[in-house]
């Protein structure tokens, strides 16, 4: 059993684990401080002891499950808490060994500390409780530079490693490079990028440099899944399909900051990158930014195609999120022109779509476009086995839109 295992209680000195503390780890998800060299041993002891937490033999045993290694980097206690909450929810679908690194290089103390905790779910009321482990490693002062060395020995063998990186690629370069070397998959969120086009370029280069052996995902691309699906629906009807090849203008509205802070166009840029990839549009002139508005000129088979980005100040919590899209297209030989509009509804769950042809509304429908938090987005990303070549193609285009122009 685990009576003499060297596990420390959260924040306190070294102690011995007992049934009560095990109960707290398993039942309440509490984190327990543990000596670095004892992490693996402590986790083994934890799972051996899970049987002790059963009330009776008739109660189903606790099941440990693991389908991947998930490595998450954080810089503040608040980010650590968010990461922990996300892990707890992700374990429903993707039981994993989660290793969360908390890097505080500016902390006056110089130390590395670790905690272990468990996230347990009951998928079926009559079934077994499914648990998986979280290891949290905090590096303070110079300790922050060394925490990446903790990751490799703690990975569960033979399972894929997903690195969830929440910052621009240029920040904490050493740590990022160390972790990226061990990863099979990198997940970023370009909505958090301070310099999206620079980071897009770095991401595209990174994909190229690994010969696409490491899959790269962007949660901002994930946010576009329902938008792309709803846009595609316009052109499922074969009578509207020809308009797709003769687009004259694209207008995208997005949430911009209230004040004159730098807006983040990354989601909109990825959407245009997708159109460009699929419809073979080429960048013609670099993105021009004027406050929260911007414009871009694309070469569509020798014809200029104007793309306009308009910033809105409706919601603070979804900065960068697309709120509306309008596609203008014409078929001069047939004397037909159409406007395809997709607008996020006020309930933030749906989008209204409308097709106007020669000034007449010919079709309206509403599509499910639920507002999803990062954990929901991560769920979708983890459901993908392997890379998303369409994203990587869109990323290459998006990374080129800023060329020779102002950086956003």
């Amino acid at each position, binding site marked *: 059993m685990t009576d003499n295992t060297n596990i420390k209680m959260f924040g306190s000195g070294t102690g011995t684990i007992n049934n009560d503390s095990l109960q707290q780890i398993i039942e309440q998800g509490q984190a327990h401080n543990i000596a670095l060299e004892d992490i693996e041993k402590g986790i083994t002891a934890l799972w051996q002891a899970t049987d002790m937490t059963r009330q009776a033999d008739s109660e189903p045993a606790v099941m440990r499950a693991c389908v991947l290694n998930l490595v998450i980097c954080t810089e503040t206690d608040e980010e650590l808490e968010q990461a922990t909450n996300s892990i707890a929810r992700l374990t429903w679908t993707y039981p994993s060994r989660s290793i969360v690194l908390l890097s505080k290089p500016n902390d006056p103390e110089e130390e590395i500390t670790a905690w272990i905790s468990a996230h347990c779910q009951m998928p079926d009321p009559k079934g077994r409780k499914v648990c998986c482990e979280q290891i949290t490693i905090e590096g303070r002062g110079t300790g922050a530079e060394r925490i990446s060395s903790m990751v490799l020995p703690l990975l569960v063998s033979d399972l894929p490693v997903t690195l969830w990186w929440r910052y621009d690629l240029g920040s904490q370069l050493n740590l990022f490079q160390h972790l990226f070397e061990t990863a099979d998959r990198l997940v970023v969120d370009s909505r958090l990028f301070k310099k999206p086009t620079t980071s897009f370029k770095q991401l595209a280069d990174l994909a190229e440099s690994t010969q696409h052996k490491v899959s790269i995902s962007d949660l901002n691309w994930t946010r576009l899944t329902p938008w792309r699906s709803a846009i595609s629906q316009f052109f*499922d009807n074969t009578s509207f399909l020809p308009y797709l090849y003769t687009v004259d203008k694209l207008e995208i509205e997005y949430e911009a900051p209230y004040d004159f802070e730098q807006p983040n166009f990354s989601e909109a840029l990825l959407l245009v990158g997708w159109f460009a990839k699929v419809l073979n549009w080429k960048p013609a002139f670099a993105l021009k930014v004027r406050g929260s508005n911007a414009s871009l000129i694309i070469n569509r088979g020798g014809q200029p195609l104007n793309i306009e980005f308009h910033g809105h100040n409706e919601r603070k919590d979804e900065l960068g999120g697309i709120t509306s899209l309008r596609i203008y297209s014409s078929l001069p030989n047939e004397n037909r022109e159409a406007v395809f509009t997709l607008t996020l509804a006020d309930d933030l769950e749906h989008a209204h779509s409308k097709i106007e042809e020669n000034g007449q509304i010919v079709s309206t429908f509403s599509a499910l476009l639920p507002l999803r938090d990062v954990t929901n987005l991560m769920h979708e990303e983890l459901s993908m086995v392997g890379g998303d070549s369409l994203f990587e193609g869109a990323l290459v285009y998006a990374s080129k839109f800023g060329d020779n122009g102002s950086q956003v």
Partner: protein
Amino acid sequence: MTQALTTTATHAINPLREGMRTERTPEPCVMVIFGATGDLTHRKLIPALYNLAIERHLPANFNVIGFARRPLTDEQFRGSLVESINQFSRRRPIMPEAKEQFTQTIHFISSDFQNPEGYQRLADLLGRLDQEQGTQGNRLFYLATNPSDYPVIIENLGASGLARPQKAGSSAWSRIIVEKPIGHDLNSAQELNETIAQVFRENQVFRIDHYLGKETVQNILVFRFANSIFEPLWNRRYIDHIQMTVSEELGVEGRGPYYEHSGTIRDMVQNHMMQLLSLVCMEPPINFEANSVRDEKVKVLRAIAPLDTDDVVQRTVRGQYGAGVIFGKPVKGYREEERVDPNSVTDTFVAIKLFVENWRWAGVPIYLRTGKRLPKRMTEVALQFKAAPHRLFPQTNIEPSVLTLQIQPNDGISMRFGAKVPGQAMQIRPVTMDFRFGQSFGNVATDAYERLILDALLGDSTLFARRDEVEQAWTIVNSITNGWNYLMTPNFPNYESGTWGPKEADDFIEKDGRRWRRL
């Protein structure tokens, strides 16, 4: 199946669909439900369509036409469907915004199934929807009526020209989903299939068996053919026998008249269990196209020789439940159920031993067991391995290794094998290694009808039974029911509700030196 994910006509022509993560979207079309006021429509079909619509699996201009005898207006019909969604959808209650949008695409035609004028009105409405909604002449007909109405509906669809695309050379399609039961015996099944064949080509026909829409049933193919570790063991050399159990704790639940007519053998064995058996025993198909998979499945059924009367005596047991107690509650016997003959000789339990006489399975018995009012609801297929060829540990009794495919309720796969009990003595105890879908993939809400309707809209018939499969399954079942007709009916009721069937079922397997798994 997997290939069909990317090869629909819609995807081929709309480049924006390429690489789309949201799964398949069919072409614009109209679904016509015959028997639109019935239980199946309200409990399964409309909730499934609503879920598909809300999750963006249906095309924007998808329309539904209900066709039934009751004199309802569009509005009355729509109102009743909203109630069904609120009651039976896994996404209930209906979202206010979606309510307006979804219900506006639903229409109703009140007509007798025999009346040609009703089909003319249907044709007119379909033509109007093609014009206004761009549904392009694509139709999916769903027979959700009493099976006795199938022939007249099919004949009228043929006579009205609705079974064929309206314009010559157009890419429009017309398909039909036929619910089970497909016939009551081989003759009636052949008769119905012939009626269908006079109007629809086989590639237009989708015979639905909702068992095949279950994730875990589909996973049998993945488990067998996507992993190289199991298939080498999947044959007579290593497998001692196979046990398939489909048990229900429920009784006939008000379906007395239907059950009196069918019994367990027709209700469960002819369709669900034969489908399971063919998936478990089939050879690897050359690819996952519908006909490749179904070719292999039907070969399994062809390799099962029909039973003669002696076989029926030796290799089948039938039962009927009497009163008993289930989960602490007293329950009635079958003969006391509502609208059931008090002297009924209908079977509510069947155990059968079958052999698949081919290179892979020759000599391996396959035991099927299914019944109502058994102790719990459970569907599983267990493959019991042969004992090790040499008894290295003679002092200890070693249980055979078993691989179990659990279909419901706890879908997953488990492997039982022997392990040494820690200590000085050499004791071997069976341990179980479990894989549960819920534990590795979470509880993903899936519904068999959603999956199968979507497949039919996309023209993927992999998970639907083909005519020859259905008729071959009937050939086997007919040989058993014919044998029973020559034999004396057992002294029904012969098992108590809440038990695992009649004692004869235990004797029947024990005389082979085997026993039913304790579930």
